[in-house]
């Protein structure tokens, strides 16, 4: 094996040759096809190994994601192909045009369509926590702006996922997106029962800000055992 040649190849790729050595190298590349061919293979091998080992984790993540998207696609999409006769095409086309005329304002889905915050029920009988009561009443009366300071006060004393979730929803209703999203993201990366709900609201926050692409990306991370998964799917379909 021509050891020196390969060592030289390595040095060239790592930019370790002096200006003069480099000029000689380039000259040889131009003049000697066998040398150039060997170097080309050497270079491609380096690229190949770099991808094979350097991106191994990325490839693994990609395969996993691909598999789950593929599974989902082939599960739901059992495409039924109905063969139309020519005259049926004509009817279908005219119906499509008519429908198109009437529903032309088919626009993007809106936050309001999906915004159904649940009732807050923090207080049990005999409970005397003043702030909890005030927060609950304000929230259930959809007076979110008023509820926010109460939630803040409660969280200062006792931080629970439940309160944090209702706090974040209130912030979102009040259009305090950044703060809402910080709290939702925290819940999303946690393990409480509010994890999926928070992810859902995080997607709704993007929807409200008309960031459809990130909305969709977040929706796709919600597992299908989420209690309101039908809503997730509906929104995903609308976004397409």
């Amino acid at each position, binding site marked *: *094996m021509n050891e020196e040649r390969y060592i030289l190849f390595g040095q060239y790729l790592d930019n370790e040759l002096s200006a003069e050595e480099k000029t000689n190298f380039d000259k040889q590349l131009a003049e000697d096809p066998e040398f150039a061919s060997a170097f080309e293979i050497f270079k491609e091998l380096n690229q190949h190994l770099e991808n094979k080992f350097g991106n191994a984790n990325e490839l693994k993540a990609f395969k996993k994601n691909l598999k789950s998207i593929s599974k989902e696609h082939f599960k739901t999409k059992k495409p039924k192909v109905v063969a139309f006769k020519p005259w049926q095409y004509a009817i279908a086309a005219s119906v499509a045009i008519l429908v198109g005329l009437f529903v032309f304002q088919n626009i993007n889905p809106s936050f309001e369509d999906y915004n159904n915050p649940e009732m807050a029920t923090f207080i049990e009988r005999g409970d005397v926590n003043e702030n909890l009561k005030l927060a609950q009443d304000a929230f259930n009366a959809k007076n979110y702006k008023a509820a926010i300071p109460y939630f803040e006060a409660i969280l200062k004393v006792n931080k629970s996922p439940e309160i944090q979730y209702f706090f974040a929803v209130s912030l979102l209703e009040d259009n305090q997106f950044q703060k809402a999203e910080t709290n939702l993201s925290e819940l999303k990366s946690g393990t409480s029962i509010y994890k999926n709900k928070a992810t859902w609201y995080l997607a709704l926050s993007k929807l409200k800000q008309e960031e459809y692409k990130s909305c969709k990306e977040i929706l796709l991370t919600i597992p299908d055992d989420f209690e309101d998964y039908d809503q997730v799917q509906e929104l995903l379909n609308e976004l397409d």
Partner: protein
Amino acid sequence: MANATIHPDQIYIDGLANNDSAIIQSIYKKFVPKVVHYIRNNSGDDDKAQDVVQEIMILLFNQAKTKKLQLTCPFDAYFFLLCKRKWLNEIKKSSNKGVTIDEDLPSNNEPTEEMVTETEVFDEKQQLFDLMFQKLGDKCQELLKLSFTIKSMEEVAEKLNVTYGYVRKKKSLCVGQLTQWIQETNRFKSLKII
């Protein structure tokens, strides 16, 4: 080739390389049904179609990561042709002989054909490179694996308990060994690497 204009469908290639779920889903939605339909009508089924599609997507991921794959034709035609040819190859492999398949490329579409060929050559090369890598001795394999995973040669040297200079030299020699084998392989010549 380098000067050819990049097609707007490049977003699909970039999406694959970035593992962008929204893009991958839209590929499934827009382009996969046609592939499924074709495979079903050519002695395959949904499962086979699913496999072929995944293999092609992984191939595109690797090509995009390794060589900065630049699309110069519509993704639709490119993707369909890749899947179709992969499937036809598989049928050919599994059937003993004598299956006549209409395998003509649409000859009116040169940029697409060129792109498809490029990807197929990339695929063959990858397989050849992997095959040769398996032939290397354990020491070379380990050293290459480490130096392309860790990147810092100092760390690799420490891990293997050798000097920095040795790792540098050995790395070039191991890749050199691969280079030599590949040059000697006749199969490689048909790939027209340069």
